[in-house]
């Protein structure tokens, strides 16, 4: 248990480092990408070089991903500050969200069904994540 926690903390520290590096790169080179995306690419590159996901990262990724809702609350609370913009255009917002989501979901479902029906992916879903998923199903906040 503590071994996993230590791993988790190390993994978390690494994730933070990668994030700071990508923030720095974002500002220094004015890269037109969200800093988090830069971080994702860096981490992905790391995985490809290492040939897998280190246990430390898996341990820290799981709670971070499961509780992402908490980290989104500051943004949502800020919306309270935008009450005016909201009030004026909330009809447009609601129509836009409803319409686009329903139509695009419907079409994507239909299209995926056409393209993927009868296809069987013979690669197994990577085992470690299956256990993660089982835990995530019960704890995923988003």
């Amino acid at each position, binding site marked *: 248990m503590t071994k996993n926690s230590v791993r988790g903390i190390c993994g978390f520290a690494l*994730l*933070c480092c*990668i994030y700071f590096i990508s923030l*720095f790169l974002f500002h220094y080179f004015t890269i*037109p*990408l*969200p*800093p*988090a*995306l830069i*971080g*994702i690419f860096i*981490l*992905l590159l790391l*995985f490809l070089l290492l040939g897998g996901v280190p246990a430390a990262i898996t341990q820290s990724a799981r709670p*971070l*991903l499961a509780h*992402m*809702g*908490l*980290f989104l*609350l*500051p*943004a*949502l*609370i*800020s*919306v*309270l500050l*935008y009450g005016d913009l909201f009030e004026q*255009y909330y009809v*447009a*917002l609601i*129509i*836009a*969200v*409803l*319409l*686009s*989501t*329903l*139509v*695009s*979901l419907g*079409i*994507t*479902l239909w*299209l*995926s069904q056409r*393209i*993927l*029906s009868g296809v069987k*992916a013979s*690669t197994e*879903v990577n085992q*470690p*994540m299956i256990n993660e*998923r089982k835990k995530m199903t019960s704890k*995923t*906040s988003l």
Partner: protein
Amino acid sequence: MTSALQQLIDQLSPLWSQNYVFMFACLIATLGVYLLSRKLYFWLDQNPLLHPLTISTLVIGFGLHFAEIDVMAFKRGITLFELLLGPATVALAVPLYNQLPVLRQLGFRVLAPILIGGSLAPTIAWLSVYLLKTPLQLQMTMLVKSITTPLAMGTADLIGGTPELAAVIVILTGIVGATFAPWLIILTKTDSEYAQGLALGSVAHVIGTSKALSVSETCGAFATLGLCLNGIFTALLLPILFA
């Protein structure tokens, strides 16, 4: 070099430049509200309409209003959580990496629905707000509705939209998608788990992925793939077009 570092430090500065007691109180309050609304959510069988984020925001909103606490000050208080969003988003690389074999195997078959679904949603949304004569900032914010929240916020910032509003729109999209998904699945006769997962992940991102996971592991895996790929493509494409 120094200005980049300076900007970094500015972002972190709220952590040490305010009353620690206040900051601690804000953090604990937010954490408490969040955990309680999560308990409520799972207790009520994960109904997407009672998502912990909606409940938490409403509770905190009302709380701040009645306690007459300045929203800006409270927001500064919870900067720690805001900053943690960064590493959490970077952590998305983990499920993405685990899904790469699937992508490698199925290639175009998975890319096509993601790209099409991922471009349809923002286009229709943008058309709606454009035709209804809303401000440009709102229109730009709408464009990121189909990618996962942390990436949507970053991208919105780059193309002249409002990150916080983007977060709300994305979460609304997720809730709408997850709520109506069962009916749409029946309507479009989508039997394939892969198709369901892919569509749910690309259009309703994280909330859709939770829904997909409740169907099956594979469905959830495909949803994760849809989420990550759509997020990457949109976050790459929009700034190139509009930044």
